[in-house]
């Protein structure tokens, strides 16, 4: 039986401060969230929070690996309030360019801490403000994930044309 089933998708026809996938069924094994995003922040890029179950407590942590402006770096963030390495392009970037993101969340319903991986790119033909980023994330909650929210860390809005899709993967 085939898997990788679309649970829900949202292509913005106007601006939005956040995007939320709620009432995520518990019938899958893993989740994959894919997005193409741009915000109206007055900069080349914007970085966005990914939060689970509306939880903004310090239960997230990240090990980050980034390539930007010709250099690579790695940073660790412990006990933070969301994964904020979801990169979107922003208003100063080349027009019609969007950041691309994939978040893989295995075993999202199990009663233990949940690792996840996030891969994001923001390429807009800029020599200094394009980014490729991959990070290992951990959500230290034993609660099944039933909602995912993405919003700008800088209080900007996603613009029209930004798209988000959530897929469920079943191992059986």
């Amino acid at each position, binding site marked *: 039986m*085939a898997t990788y089933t679309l649970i829900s998708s949202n292509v913005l026809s106007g601006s939005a401060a956040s995007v939320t996938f709620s009432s995520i069924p518990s019938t899958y094994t893993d989740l994959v969230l894919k997005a193409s995003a741009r915000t109206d922040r007055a900069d080349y890029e914007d970085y966005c929070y990914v939060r689970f179950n509306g939880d903004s407590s310090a239960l997230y942590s990240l*090990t980050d*690996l980034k390539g930007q402006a010709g250099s690579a*770096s790695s940073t*660790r963030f412990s006990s933070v309030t969301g994964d904020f390495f979801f990169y979107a392009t922003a208003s100063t970037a080349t027009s019609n360019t969007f950041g691309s993101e994939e978040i893989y969340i295995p075993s999202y319903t199990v009663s233990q801490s949940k690792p996840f991986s996030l891969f994001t790119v923001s390429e807009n033909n800029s020599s200094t403000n394009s980014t490729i980023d991959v990070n290992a994330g951990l959500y230290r909650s034993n609660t099944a994930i039933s909602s995912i929210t993405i919003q700008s860390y800088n209080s900007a809005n996603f613009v029209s044309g930004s798209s988000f899709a959530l897929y469920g993967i079943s191992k059986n």
Partner: protein
Amino acid sequence: MLILLLEHLSHYTGLGENKVAATYEPIATTTLGSAASSITFSSIASTWTDLRLVLVGTNVSSGYMWILRLNSDSSSNYSNTRLYGTGASAGSGRSTSVTSAWIGDSNLNNSTTIPNLSTIDIFSYAGSTYKTLLSTSSTDLNGSGNVIGFVNLWRSTSAITTITLLNDGASNFAAGTTATLYGLKSA
């Protein structure tokens, strides 16, 4: 990115008027009821184009790296290039003529509540050329951990029929570790 989204939409059914052939099929899954030294997927059919393997779990002992072998080959037919972030520094490394493909992190802990994640893509696994594997290892322990991207090469022209997951050392996979193999078709 919208084009990529449409391509992924083709990977499942249930789109009403836009239904397309299904792909991304689960082949087999294993969840360990007790600690084990290895997890093996055998008799893999040549039906698909690519394979994806998802491994989530922990080791009984820390400090050992996750590896895999193809068709039980433990000869020096593997090599890899890797890009890693430790949280303090970024770097790259290369290993040639090694005895396994590297898919995980040597900093794996033995916590039963903080699992590690590795995803492995194996392209054209049934073809008659050398095999490329692309994998990502995600290990964050809220104060330590690594994120690593690997590209591995298996210098064999044989179709892959067996995949064995192991630790590079004396550790076992802990109970609760889950490995799932998926097949992806190109058409």
